[in-house]
């Protein structure tokens, strides 16, 4: 039987997780195909929660499908669309479906998505959500009421080492470590020097850090430049490198970044995202020598 993600985290091996985006509709064939192609090499599949505020299938449903297919899912839990009652309720539901790994995120703002008039909730922020999850795992809800049966979660949080300015981002990252997490997953990183303070701090607390790696698509250069992907800051030199190139350039860059991160010991693993281009992920993994 395949090891759990929690077991993978303590294995000391270089970790690999892959991001999958739930379908906009009920056709889950693409996501199942991605999972089947990669389940033997990926330690887990991060299932995004309505990423970029584009409405799609509930991530917990996709997580269950991944479990059914023999994969290990990480449920992304966004504070954007649910208040504290719904968040806790969904977490209990996720636990009952066998979902063990969660990643607590604030959520991309609704203005990036396809329902721009939706009301963003943000009743809790990601730090407060982590606190709520701890309460659940200790057998009580965040209002202090006892639970009948308590969930167990391997908890993750995100940080963006490319934020500018960095100190306020680092402060929030430290709060997440203080609340307590098992792993940190970063936004895509291109300037590798930015990873060092994050990975050092995480390791000091015994927390694993997965560096974000994004497959860059030449056709999307203008979107990267215009900031259409929240938290994705591609340096001008890389934009120039991929502009007008073929998709193999995106594979080459992602693999190059992974090799460099690994060689310099700047992370404990990587989280690869290639939204809409998941078929390129095996090429990236191969080229990176993972």
């Amino acid at each position, binding site marked *: 039987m395949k090891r759990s993600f929690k077991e993978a985290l303590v294995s000391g091996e270089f970790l690999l997780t892959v991001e999958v985006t739930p379908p906009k509709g009920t056709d889950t064939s693409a996501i199942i195909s991605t999972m089947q192609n990669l389940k033997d090499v990926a330690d887990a599949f991060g299932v995004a929660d309505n990423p970029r505020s584009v409405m799609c299938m509930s991530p917990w449903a996709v997580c269950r499908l991944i479990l059914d297919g023999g994969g290990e899912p990480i449920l992304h839990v966004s504070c*954007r669309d649910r208040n*504290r009652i719904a968040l806790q309720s969904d977490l209990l539901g996720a636990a009952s479906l066998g979902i063990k790994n969660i990643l607590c995120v*604030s*959520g*991309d*703002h609704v*203005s990036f998505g396809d329902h721009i008039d939706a009301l*963003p909730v*943000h*009743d*809790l*922020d*990601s*730090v*407060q959500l982590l*606190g*709520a999850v701890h309460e659940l795992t200790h057998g009580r809800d*965040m209002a202090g009421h006892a639970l009948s049966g308590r969930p167990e979660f391997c908890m993750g949080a*995100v*940080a*963006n080492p490319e*934020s*500018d*300015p960095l*100190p*306020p*981002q680092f*402060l*929030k990252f430290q*709060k997440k470590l*203080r*609340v307590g997490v098992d792993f940190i997953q970063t*936004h895509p990183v291109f300037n590798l020097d930015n990873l060092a303070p994050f990975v050092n701090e995480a390791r000091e607390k015994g927390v694993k850090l997965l560096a974000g790696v994004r497959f860059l698509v030449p056709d999307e250069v203008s979107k990267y430049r215009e*900031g259409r992907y*929240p*938290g994705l*800051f591609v340096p001008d030199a890389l934009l120039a490198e991929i502009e007008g190139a073929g998709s193999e350039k995106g594979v080459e860059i992602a693999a190059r970044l992974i090799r460099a991160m690994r060689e310099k010991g700047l992370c404990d693993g990587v989280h690869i995202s290639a939204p809409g281009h998941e078929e390129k992920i095996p090429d990236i993994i191969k080229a990176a020598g993972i």
Partner: protein
Amino acid sequence: MIVASRKPFTEIKGFVDGCKKVLIVGCGTCVAVCLAGGEKEAAILASQLYMASRLSGHATQFDKATVERQCDREFLVDLGRNVDVAGYDAIISMACGAGVQLLAEVYDSKVVVPALNTVFIGVAEGLGVWTERCRSCGNCVLGETAGICPVTMCAKGLLNGPCGGTRHGKCEVNPDVDCAWAKIYERLAARGRLEDITRIIPGRKDARGMHPATAVHPAYRRIQ
């Protein structure tokens, strides 16, 4: 102050189509300062409605009056002493949402409709420019956040630090707007008070979750 902006003319006109006599009531406080619903704006709206009525072959009468504050009952009662409110088919209120509702309550047999959209509590930035500063959450954190409100100034209202979208110190939602947490950090660093934001702020009560709210000054509690 409360900042409002005028509704589209066609929407306001639609509220009073078919009326023969309409009273437009301006408000002399917040919405007068933000050039949306004061005496001058009431006069402009009356002229526009008058012209539109005549152009469509009607002869609706549009009168105007402005009170000091529509959110204060005594000024609305005074309005009734100076104007024959009963003689109008409809009243257009140019106040914020609070003023419209109190006017509708005081003259509850009348059709009262709004001419403005109430948009936020804010400050004047310069001529004709106002920006939001307060979401009236009822649980002010400004003492910890260098006088910059993360509930209002952060697009996600995050209380424990920024999201991952800050770029060049700007908000991911609008690159013309400062990231609230970048500004909070910068100001506290300059004051040598960064410890103010190291506390983890727990999930908290937000007054916006429980409305309509009531506030009673302690000195008046017994009377209430």
